[in-house]
């Protein structure tokens, strides 16, 4: 089973971020978009006095669903099948791609229309289809911009937020052969409407993701804004929905919680323009054939980690991206994953058994803004720290890791700090050794050799002339009144 070529590379976060930080256009676009969504989100969240209760309920519903995931998936399968749908199971990306391509080929379709789906990005579906002679047409406006621009999505909800109107116009002019196209958002929307309408009415197979599955009655729920989703869900003869196994909710009424928190968190609207909910197939309304492909692809092992399991509660609102100071600076591409931002920083490495995206748990200042806005209360900083621990543990198992600067440094620190005598001695040695590195301002700006990594991005406060422990000892021996070096150095501040 060979995985399809992904357009996401293995570059580390700092490497990828450095390149993006140099692109001031992307940074301006990202800053503008996230500022606008954040402001709208804060306004509509602020008008709900029961917001915290909704978060609490949403978190508990999602946690409960995950604790009983096997049971709810089987219940969903039973009810979806009873309603005329067909449920498929895919262990990994290759298996999901094969199932979906097989279904498309069974109907001799050469083209499919698609609703924005992150799972499809995760498994590289478009590439797989193209390699096998099937042309996928993205229908979400932003996804269309990304697809026609031969680009990558950079955000869950507004995947093309890194492009401004002039850049979109250039792409549409070139790809839709519309040399006269203007750059007003209205013009660009009208061009997309005309370009896609013909496809909705002609193409017979659609591929979607899903926001929620409901175990109780086998329902599938998709939220969207433009109506492109509804077109894909209702006009074609065949609908294939690719859904991560974690997306299941126990009961229909659970939607009353997430359909309040998701739109307010995602786009800052009280409700999305459109929510579609359906079960299986319905005579005379919508597709005649409906398939759900349940995708594991690294999700089930995450359940084993009690601390990190909460990652799978995510409902993909992207509020954590918009709130994140790191994402603000770098945009989404630096994460090299279908899932960028703080949630991506914990989800991506776990989906790859911590073998890819290992720098992502460090792509955070742990400021906690992501946790504060999360509508299902995923404690992202806690999981980030937990995953950093895992990265270190893994590293310690390799020879390179054992002898690495970090490990040696940490082991040395542990040795020194576990004995008061050794600690005092080290402090005195440090006070002597630092002298040649301390600048006039009292900071160490550059350390030599292996230690230089630490001072590359930060200055280090020099050790004081007298340590607290020395000062305390002196104070005790003077009968409670310390004078001398410590007092002087405090006065000097």
């Amino acid at each position: 089973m060979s995985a399809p070529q992904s357009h996401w590379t293995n570059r580390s976060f700092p490497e990828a971020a450095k390149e993006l930080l140099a692109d001031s256009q992307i940074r301006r676009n990202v800053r503008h978009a996230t500022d606008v969504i954040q402001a709208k989100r804060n306004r509509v969240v602020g008008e709900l006095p029961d917001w915290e209760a909704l978060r609490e309920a949403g978190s508990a519903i999602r946690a409960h669903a995950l604790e009983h995931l096997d049971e709810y998936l089987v219940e969903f399968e039973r009810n979806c099948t009873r309603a005329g749908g067909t449920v498929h199971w895919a262990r990994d990306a290759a298996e999901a791609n094969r199932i979906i391509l097989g279904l498309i080929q069974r109907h001799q379709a050469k083209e499919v229309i698609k609703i924005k789906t992150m799972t499809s990005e995760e498994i590289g579906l478009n590439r797989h289809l193209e390699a096998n002679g099937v042309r996928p047409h993205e229908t979400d406006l932003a996804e269309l911009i990304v697809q026609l621009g031969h680009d990558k999505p950079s955000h869950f909800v507004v995947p093309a937020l890194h492009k401004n109107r002039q850049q979109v116009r250039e792409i549409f002019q070139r790809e839709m052969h519309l040399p006269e196209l203007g750059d007003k958002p209205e013009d660009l929307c009208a061009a997309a409407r005309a370009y896609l309408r013909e496809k909705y009415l002609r193409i017979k197979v659609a591929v979607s993701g899903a926001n929620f599955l409901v175990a109780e009655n086998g329902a599938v729920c998709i939220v969207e804004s433009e109506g492109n989703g509804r077109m894909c869900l209702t006009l074609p003869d065949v609908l294939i929905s690719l859904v991560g196994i974690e997306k299941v909710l126990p009961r229909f009424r659970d939607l009353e919680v997430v359909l309040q928190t998701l739109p307010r968190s995602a786009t800052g609207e009280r409700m999305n323009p459109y929510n579609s909910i359906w079960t299986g197939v319905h005579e005379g309304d919508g597709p005649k054939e409906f398939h759900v492909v349940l995708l594991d692809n690294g999700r089930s092992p995450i359940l084993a980690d009690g601390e990190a399991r909460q990652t799978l509660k995510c409902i993909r609102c992207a509020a954590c991206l918009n709130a994140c100071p790191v994402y603000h600076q770098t945009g989404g591409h630096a994460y090299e994953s279908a899932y960028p931002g703080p949630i991506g920083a914990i989800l991506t490495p776990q989906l790859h058994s911590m073998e890819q995206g290992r720098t992502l748990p460090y792509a955070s200042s742990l400021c906690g803004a992501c946790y504060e806005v999360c509508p299902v209360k995923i404690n992202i900083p806690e999981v980030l720290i937990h995953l950093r621990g895992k990265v270190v543990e893994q590293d310690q198992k390799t020879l390179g890791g054992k002898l690495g600067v970090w490990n040696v440094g940490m082991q040395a620190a542990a040795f020194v700090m576990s004995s008061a005598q050794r600690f005092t001695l080290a402090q005195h040695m440090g006070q002597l050794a630092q002298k040649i590195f301390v600048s006039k301002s009292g900071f160490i700006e550059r350390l030599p050799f292996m230690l230089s990594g630490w001072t590359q991005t930060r200055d280090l406060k020099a050790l004081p002339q007298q340590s607290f422990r020395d000062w305390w000892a002196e104070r005790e021996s003077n009968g409670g009144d310390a004078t001398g070096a410590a007092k002087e150095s405090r006065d000097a501040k």
Partner: protein
Amino acid sequence: MPSESDARLAILGSIRNALRVPAERNDAARAAEYAAIPRDYKRSGTRQGEALLELFTHRLQEYDAGVQRAPSGKIADAIGGLLAERGRHRIAIPDEVPRTWLPPGYPFEEAAGLDSMQLDKLDGVLTGCTVAIAETGSIVLQNAAAQGRRALSLVPDYHLCVVFASQVVETVPECFARLDATANLPTTFFSGPSATADIEMTRIKGVHGPRYLDVLLVVD
């Protein structure tokens, strides 16, 4: 090639293994856990009568939807007025739209026999609804009398929706309480005309769904 049922067993096995669940799961315990989920959020609203309808109207207008009122005896007149104002003539209607809604002089077309291509050529569609939510300005359609199949309210560029005051609830949970009995029907929530903010976060009305939405609120 491995079969799909292998994949099913492997995934369920992997989940059970990760969760360390016993071979026999306990349904009663799961139901009790589910029942214990805290639901301290607002279940029902506090507004009634005019205050409720005002909130609904205000929220719809924020989405750029047109809102008009009429008493139940004047529905056809009001619809005739709106269609004339909008310059829309060829209007699709789903099954079981009451004849008393239809003003004379308009070629209403039974939508049941029309395919998507034909729908695309009409000026608009007239439907009722199942329930509406004031707090979010949302209207819910199901595949039921006077609402029809999902494509009807999607393909034509203009949607005129009749909402009775008795169909308006204040909160999302109240809406779901009303939908519970018909949860298996194809269901569409719509909140204003279709929209996008994908380009520089500027909200543009009408991408693929109807670009124009009028709501006729029937109040006696």
